[in-house]
Structure formats: structure tokens, C-alpha cells
């Protein structure tokens, strides 16, 4: 059998170390979803275009469908499931609820993770900062609410 690479290095996801049995060419997205059972990061395109799969790797927004899981080994991976702390919602998640942002919701976890990376870098983003950072696709068209919620979370 091929595709049986060397043993997969351990992944640190949401502060927990995971030993995942996946082939070494496995994108991080599928290691998270099928390996670790964390389905908050979504598949939308598989080619880095839509951002539905966005997670944080060492604090940066990463489209996990185009990053190999092995390359994230030893780094700090945060998914939507681990964004809030100690059972509390992250300010962005709360703002998303307050502004009733999601429609179908499928893009929203990736949207929130992209926003989390933005706020980490730029705590009080301007509209232009938001325009530049938020390049995820939302087919339902929630962009106005996304912008409002990011501003609200920045003030929270």
C-alpha cells in the first residue's frame, strides 16, 4: 500500500495534543474533521478560495484545506470549537449572535476565525482593514452583518 508515510506528528489543537492516524499528504482540514472529529471548519472548495475551512495556526488565519497537517505539527492550532475560553463565547461569537449574522451559517465558522485573526493583529480595525482581511465567500450574503459584528466585537 502506498500513501502510508511516516507516522503523523502530533497536532496541538485547541490546547490538546492529538495523535492522528492520517496519511502525510492529508490537508489539515481533513485531519481536523475526519481525524480529530472537529467539524466546525468546513469544506467549501478545497483549493483555498472560499475560506470556509479557516482556522488559526499560531494566531494567523489559515485556509486549512491547502495546508498539510504535518506542516501544522508543533504549532498552536485553534478551531472554532476552541475559540471561546473556559466555556465562554469569544467576543466575536457574542457579536455574531447579537447581530444575528448567520443565514445558512455554513461559512460563518470560517468567517469568525478570519475575523479573530484580524482582531488579534488589528484590535480596532477600520472598514478598509475589514475589507482587506475578510475575503471569505458567503453565498447567503451576510457581509453587512459581518462588518457590523466585527466593529461591535472590537469595541467589546
Amino acid at each position, binding site marked *: *500500500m*502506498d*500513501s*502510508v508515510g511516516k507516522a503523523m506528528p502530533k497536532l496541538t489543537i485547541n490546547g490538546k495534543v492529538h495523535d492522528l492516524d*492520517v*496519511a502525510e*499528504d*492529508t*490537508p489539515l482540514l*481533513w485531519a481536523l*474533521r*475526519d*481525524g480529530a*472529529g*472537529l*467539524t*466546525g*471548519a*468546513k*469544506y*467549501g*472548495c*478545497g*483549493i483555498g*478560495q*472560499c475560506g*470556509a475551512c479557516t482556522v488559526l495556526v499560531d494566531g494567523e488565519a489559515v485556509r486549512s484545506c491547502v495546508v498539510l497537517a504535518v506542516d501544522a505539527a508543533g504549532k498552536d492550532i485553534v478551531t*472554532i*470549537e476552541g475559540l*471561546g475560553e473556559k466555556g465562554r*463565547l469569544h467576543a466575536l*461569537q457574542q457579536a*455574531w*449572535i447579537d447581530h*444575528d*449574522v*448567520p*443565514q*445558512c*451559517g*455554513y*461559512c*460563518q*465558522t470560517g468567517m469568525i476565525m478570519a475575523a479573530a485573526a484580524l482582531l488579534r493583529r488589528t484590535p480596532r480595525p477600520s472598514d478598509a482593514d*475589514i*475589507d*482587506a482581511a*475578510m*475575503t*471569505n*465567500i*458567503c*453565498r*447567503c*450574503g*451576510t*457581509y*453587512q*452583518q459581518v*462588518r457590523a459584528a466585527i466593529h461591535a466585537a472590537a469595541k467589546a
Partner: protein
Amino acid sequence: MATVQIDRRRLLVGGAALGTGLAVGIRLPGARPGARAEDGSPEVTAWVVIRPDETVVVRIARSEMGQGTLTGLAQLVAEDLDCDWSRVTAEYASPAANLARGRVWGDFGTGGSQGLRASVPYVREAGAAARSMLMAAAAARLGVDASALTVAKGVITHPPSGRTLTYGAVAEAAAKLPVPRRVTLKPRERWTIAGQPLKRLDTPPKVTGAQVYGFDVRLPGMVTGLVQDCPVTGGRLVRFDAAKALAVKGVRQVVRIDDTSLAVVADGFWPAKTALDRLEITWDYGPNAAVDSASIARSLTEGLAAADANDGNSAGDAAGGLSGAAKRIEATYSYPYLNHAPMEPMNATALFTGERCEVWCPTQNGEAALEAAASASGLPAAKCEVHKLHLGGGFGRRLAQDYVTQAVLVAKQMPGTPVKLLWTREEDMARGRYHPAMQARLEGGLDANGRIAALSVRLAGHSILGFAKDPLVFQGLAARGEHRFGYAVPNLKIDYAMRNSHLKPGFWRGVNINQNAIFLECFIDELAHAAGKDPLAFRLEMLDGDVRRRAVLEAAAARAGWGTPPAAGRHRGIAQVMTFGSYVAAVAELSVSDDGRRVKLHRIVAATDPGHVVNPAQVERQVSGSFVYGLSALFLQACTVEKGRIVETNFDSFDSMRLAQMPEVETIVMPAGGNAPWGGVGEPTIGVAAPAVLNAYFAATGKRLRDVPLSKAGVRLV
């Protein structure tokens, strides 16, 4: 108060189940005989379950795909139930139980902007019936007459004695009472839940990752399958060599699904994808292998002048009116095939045991999914079940159940093993139910006063319903019904020549209003300019007598400041349509780079009159969302064909608007109320964004763009 006679047939259907002791002959799958929810809580009516802790569970038959119908329907039930909104949750009614109980929840179909408006009468009655049963139970408990009781937020009070009882306390007794034959509905003025901009019920799990979509389903022992269908519709699968695919670690099997498709079954998406890429497949591309976009366009263009057209709307003598006109203009427009591209690609999970078949899936029609499961499994529908999941977008694509059929056909070959069958984005793009391609040839004549003396519109393109007299092609152009034309033109001829390609067409958000609104509202704009008149004034002058149409147009224009000069460098365009029973209008404001190639949308003001509104905040979101969907298509999208197959395989070639391109959308929600029929919300407004933008582009540049997408002309949205 309005008293409504509950429809006799529905009473027999629902009431027979509920009225005679609730239990006779009823079996909820997985539950005890009798009207109880799975957790044992009493079902007061089929729509309302009340738990001892006062939680009110509202059963929902339609599907939630982002449009907010789940919350809206719950608001309607809760309003006439008089319960505490903060205790309301919603759950899907089971399609199998619906079948077993004589369709007690009615239609599960969620399309045509019908989800809410078609459900209104019976969901309100369901809430009111439950209320009346709860009050009767409380009256019996307190030994008083029900008319002596009042209720607010699920707390029943007997004012003379000050005694109170909660819904949770009397639900058990209420559930044993007969369903009343007559119920009293609350008049609109007393609504406190319906009509309010309440928050959606389905938001919290969508921001934590806890929401389980079809793609996220996990069952014990489950395997994951990826589908590959013949790239050319009409072709077939001849054979495949699975040796290399099976060598990939984690791959279980490669199975033929049917004549045209196969699936790789593995322990997860990635091994399945790796194996799919290594599979050696021999296809017979069939009779459509030579079709391309140019040949399709030629066939449509031929249809523009063909004799085999069917009349849609006519008056007077269009040919005579045109030849006698003081001034005459003509134009040809085109609109391409489009994929729905919901964020979540098609998928379904199926478990077949030989005796039963269960499916977990996102679908716009739970009953149709159940039928698909039954027919693919070969089992009677009574032995099947569909577990509905929230959709990661639908837009019409999930009205077709092809992916459910596939999942069951694979599961049938692996009895006892749950199979999650997924489509890659590439499969989803190739296997669409495409928005029909259409062309239009328009000729208009003005009289000496600059009024429209004659108009002829020839449509040529793909019929979704697949027949030459397809009435749906005349959306927004029809003489009667929910999609009326609306202008007073003495000599009119609107007809249609069907020209179908091998692609499978489907209902794409807005359906045929997308192109018809562009054809008509841009050409009206052309006529206004030919007449030397202001586009708004020209429309107001030419409208028929429908005051609601005039009202939305005037409201949007007033809010947008039509008639006052826009900021330097900015230009405005206007459009209106009446479709899905709603009146909508929009004014777009944009600026264009000097070379005409870069468009910045600043603002769109929309006005919508859907007759009645259940949740104005959700209406606003549907309006701005519909603009993103429609304008993404206008600027960026087309499904083109080469060698019989779709060229665009993913979001790199089928792009979608991003946040930075989003204009400020301001929505005026102005329901006529009263006796106005209920109109739709999710789709109507999509029609006005594109023509308003195109008309504004003309105002900015003096140039008419008549072919969609605008990327073909090198025009980009920035």
C-alpha cells in the same frame, strides 16, 4: 377577532389523528403510540409539544437553508399560542411521521418563496388550536369556565381568584382533549411575536461549530464516499479499473452507483479523494460531447427569430404599433447558465439494513427525499425515514434529490454500514441544475408624446419545466398572477421559443425573474432615454394602475434621493418588478473608472411590499443577501460548456462577491397589509439589483451592457 373555520379536510386528516384521544392508529416512529414527542413530552397538537419545564417545541415542516423560515414559522405558531417566546425552540417534523399521519404537517417543499406564506393559515390555526386546548384543560383543572381565563406568555390566570397555571402544568391534560373545530386568530394589531424583528432561533450553534450539517454527520461505523458522475450529461460509465485506487490506505471499495456514476468508499474524505484521482475510468461521452457554449448561443439566437414561439402576454397589434411608431429602438440581451453553488456541496448519509432505510440530509423537500429513499432502496416509504438537517445553502438546488438517490444506491450495496456520500465542489459544479440560459430580443416604439406605443419581447432559451408552453418563462412579464408585467402598453407581444440544451435546468433563487427583470427594466430604461425622459418619471407615466407597484418605486426613489444630484462621480439607476406576489424596487448608486472597467457599488436602496411581514429583520437580510447572490452572477458568473462539459469547476473560475465589494444596502419594508395576499421574500428582490446597477452603469458611461456576466466585457466589481 377573526374567527376561522378550520378546513374540514385538514380537520379530518389532522383531527382524526389528534381528536379522538390522540392516539388511535398513530405511531410515531421511535416513540410510544400516542401523541408524544420522542422525549415523552405531550404533543398538544402536531405542531406544538410542551415540555414540563415550559419549553415550547414548535414542529417545522419546511427547511431552513438560511432564509429564516424556521424562526418565522415558529413566530406565527407562537403568536396564536400566546406562549413565552423565550421558551420556544423549533424542531423538524419527521417526513416519515408525516406520511404515517396523513400529512398532518402538510407540504414540506421549500421553494418558490412559499415556505412561510403558504404555511400561514394552518400554522396559525395550529397555534390557536393548542392555545384553546390548554385553556380548556386549565378551566377543567380550576373548575371554572374557560371564558373566565386569560393567558399571557404561557401563564393562564383566573383573574377573579388570582389563581394561575402554566402551559407546562396543563399540557398533559390538554393533549388528551379534542382539537377544536373552530379557533380564534389574533388580529394583526395585537401581534407581539409575529411581525417583530426577533432574533433567529438557529444562531447559537452556527457560531460555535456545534451545528451539524450534512457534511458533518457522524454515525458509528460510518464510511465516506465521494461521487464521480460522467462529466458530460447524457454520457455513461463504461468501466473502471480500481486497482490503483484500492491501493490507497483507508479505501474500502469502489462501487458503481448507476449507469453514469461511481463512488469511492473510504474511511474519510482524503483517502477517498486520493483514490478518486487515481481511478482509471472509461466514459462514453454520448451524443452531447460536441456541444459547447457557442453552439448553445447559436441555437438561442436562432430562436429569437423563429416561428415556433408561444405567446405569453399580448395586447393590441405589436407589429402594427411598431411600424407606426414615431421612434423605434431595439436591443438583444443574454443571460448565461449558472450553478447554485451553495457553500455546502451536495451530500447525504444513508443506512440501509434490508428492512429499513434511513437518510440524513440537507433537502428543500423532506417528503421528496423520503420518496427518493424509498424508490432507490426498493422499500416502501413506510420503512424509510429522512432526518432533515439545516442546509448549508439551498437556493433551489436541493429541490432535486439526486444526491439522496445516489447515497441510498451506495448504502444498498453495503447493508448495515452508514455511508456518507459527499460531492466535491468540482462534482457540484459539474452536476448542477443550472439556471437556464436565455436571450431576449426587444423592440419598442414610442409615440409622438414619448409614450410606449408598442413593445415586443421574444425570449429564447431553456425551459425549466421542459415544455414549449412553460408559463414560468414569463416571470415578471405575465398578464396575470404573481409575476405581472405592470406597464400599460397598448400594443404588446411577449412570446417564447424554447431552446433546450443537454444540461439539466433548475430553480435558481429568483428563477426567471433574474433575466426577465434585466431584459425588461433595462429596455424600459432605454426607452426612457429614447423618449428623453427621466427613467423614474417615464416608469411612473407608463405603469398600469396598480398602486402598490407605484408605491415601492416612489419609496425607493425618495429614500435614494432620486431627483437630487448624487455626490460627484456617482450615478444612479432604478428598476422595479412584481414577482412571487411581491412588489419590489431598487435604486443603485455607483461610480465607474474612466475606462469603464471598474465599478464600485456604493449604495442600493430597496423597497419591498410582500403584503405581510413576519420578521422585518429577516426580510432585510434576505434583501441584502439576494443582492449578493444576484450581483455575483451579474458581474462574475457563468457556466460555460466545452465538449459537452461545464468548464467552471470551482470558485476560482466561478467567483462570488466578497465583503469588500458589498454596497451599503438599505431596505424599506412596506407591507400593504389588510387583505393583500401574502407575497414571497427570499426571491423577489433579487430581480431588481441587476437592472438597477446596469441602468446606473449606463447613467455613468452612456454605454449599455446587455450580456451577463459583465466580466465578458472586462467590467469588474471593485
